[in-house]
C-alpha cells in the first residue's frame, strides 16, 4: 500500500503542505491535477528523490521516509520514458535483474515473457532510438515491472501518445493490473483515463490532496 501522512515538501517552485494520501494494497490510484501543480513532485517524493520537510511515507507497511530510493522496490515510469539509449530493448528490460545479479538463463527467460506480455517480443534486439511513442512506453513499462515490484508509479504515461496508441496502452495497463494486482499510483490530467483505471481517485488542488469518490 501507499500511505502519505501529513507530508510537506519543497521542490523547486512547489511547496506542498499537509498532504494525505492512502492507496490500499492492490488498488489502482489515480492522482489528477492541473499540469504544473506539483503532481510529479509527489511522485518523486514517494520514489525518494525529493526529501520531505515534514511527515512520513509508508509503503507496504514499511516507513520509507528516509530510505534509499534503490531499496524501496518501486517500479517507476517517468514522464519522458527515459529509456537507456545506449542499450537494446532487451538490455533495458533485463536491467533490474542484472543489478540483482540474477543468473543469465533466468534473465533471458523472464525478459522473453515480459516482452511477450508487453507486445514487444519482435523488438528485443533493437536500439531504443527509432521506436515509436507507444513502443517506448511498452518498453518502459516492461522495464519497471521486470523485478515484480510491489508498487508502481506512473507519471503521465499516456499524455504524449496519439489517441489510437493511447487506447492500446490504456488496455495494456488494465490487463497488467488485473494480472498482477500491483498497488499503483498513476498521475494524469485526463479524466478519461481516471474513469477507466481508478479504484481510488485523488485531486491535487491548491497544494492539497482531496480524495474523490469513484464512480
Amino acid at each position: 500500500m501507499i500511505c502519505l501522512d501529513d507530508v510537506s515538501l519543497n521542490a523547486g517552485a512547489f511547496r506542498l503542505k499537509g498532504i494525505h494520501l492512502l492507496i490500499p494494497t492492490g488498488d489502482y490510484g489515480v492522482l489528477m491535477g492541473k499540469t504544473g501543480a506539483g503532481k510529479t513532485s509527489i511522485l518523486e517524493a514517494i520514489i525518494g528523490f525529493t526529501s520531505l520537510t515534514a511527515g512520513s511515507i509508508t509503503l507496504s507497511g514499511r516507513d520509507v521516509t528516509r530510505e534509499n530510493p534503490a531499496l524501496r522496490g518501486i517500479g517507476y515510469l517517468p514522464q519522458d520514458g527515459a529509456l537507456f539509449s545506449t542499450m537494446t530493448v532487451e538490455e533495458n528490460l533485463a536491467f533490474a535483474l542484472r543489478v540483482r545479479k540474477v543468473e543469465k538463463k533466468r534473465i533471458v527467460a523472464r525478459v522473453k515473457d515480459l516482452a511477450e506480455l508487453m507486445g514487444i517480443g519482435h523488438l528485443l534486439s533493437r536500439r531504443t532510438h527509432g521506436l515509436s511513442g507507444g513502443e517506448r512506453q511498452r518498453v518502459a513499462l516492461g522495464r519497471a515491472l521486470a523485478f515484480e515490484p510491489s508498487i508502481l508509479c506512473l507519471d503521465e504515461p499516456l499524455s504524449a501518445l496519439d489517441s489510437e496508441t493511447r487506447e492500446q496502452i490504456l488496455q495494456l495497463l488494465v490487463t497488467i493490473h488485473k494480472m498482477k494486482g500491483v498497488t499503483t499510483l498513476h498521475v494524469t490530467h485526463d479524466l478519461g483515463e481516471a474513469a477507466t483505471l481508478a479504484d481510488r481517485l485523488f485531486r491535487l488542488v491548491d497544494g492539497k490532496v482531496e480524495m474523490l469518490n469513484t464512480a
Partner: protein
Amino acid sequence: MSEWSGSKRGIEGYETRASRITLANRVFIASFMMIGSTYLLLIFGMLLADVLYVFEQSLGKARNSSHFWASLISDNPIAVSLRDPKIQYSIWLSMISCTLSAIGSVAFAVPLGYVLSRIPFRGRNLVDAFLDIPIVLPPLIVGLSLLILFQFAPFKWAARSIVYQVPGVILAQWAVSCAYAVRTMKMTFDQINPRCEQVAISLGCTRFQAFAWVTFPEAKLGLLTAFTLAWARSLGEFGPLLIFAGATRMKTEVLSTSVFLEMNVGNIEGAVAVSLLMIFTSIVVLMITRWASNQSAEEKASVKL
C-alpha cells in the same frame, strides 16, 4: 485577394512577393557566408603563407644545387627538420606527453564534471568559477606559479625529478588542458537526462552503478571530445612549458617549444617547417577523432536487426 496580402509597398501580387522573398533569403545567406568566410580566409591565408614560405625556401635551395628534384625533396626545410634528431625527439616526446596529458585530463575531468553537474553542494558555483582560472590566466603565469609552487614542501621533495624534467612537461600540459576537459565533461553530463539515472536507481542501482551503466555510456561522445580538446590544447601549450619544464633540447623539448627554439637561433624556415608539422599532426588527430565520433553517432542512429 484578402486584405492581408498587401505590405508597406502596397498591394503586391503573389509572384512579386515570392521572388522578393527568395531574393531576400539569398542575400541573407550570402551575407552571413561572406562574414564567416572573412575569418576562414584569414586562417587559410596564414596556412598558405607558411606553406609558400617553405616552398620558396626549398625552391631557392633546389635551384642552387645540381640535382633539382632530389634537392627539392630532401633539402626542403621540412625534410631537413625531420632528419634532425632534435626534432625527431621533439615529435616523439610531443606525441607521448600530449596523449598522457589528455588521458590524465579526462581521468580527472569525468569525476569532477560529474560532481559539478549532478551533485549539489555548498560553494558549487565558486568551484565552477575556480576551474576557469587555468583557462583565463595568461600561460606564463601558470608556468611561473607552478615553478614557485615547487619551492614549497611537500612539492619541494619531488622538485628534483619534475622541474626542468620530462614529467614537468606532462604536468604543465595537464594543468591547463584538464580545465578544458572539465568544462566539456560538465557540459556533457548537463545534457544527459538525469531521469535515466533516477530510473536506474529506482530499479535498485547504487549511484556508482547508475553512473557506470547508464550515464557513462551516454557520455562517450563527450568523452571523446574532451580527450581531443585536451590533446590539442596540450600540443599547443607553450608558455607554462617554457618556464616550468625548460626547453632543453633532446630532453624537455616538444613541438611547440621547438618552434620557439628554432626562431631563437634565427632559423626561421626551420621554425615554419616545424609549425607545418604541428599543423599536420593536429589535423590528423582531429580527423581521427571526428571519424571515431561519426562512427558512434552512426551506430546510435542505425537500426540493428
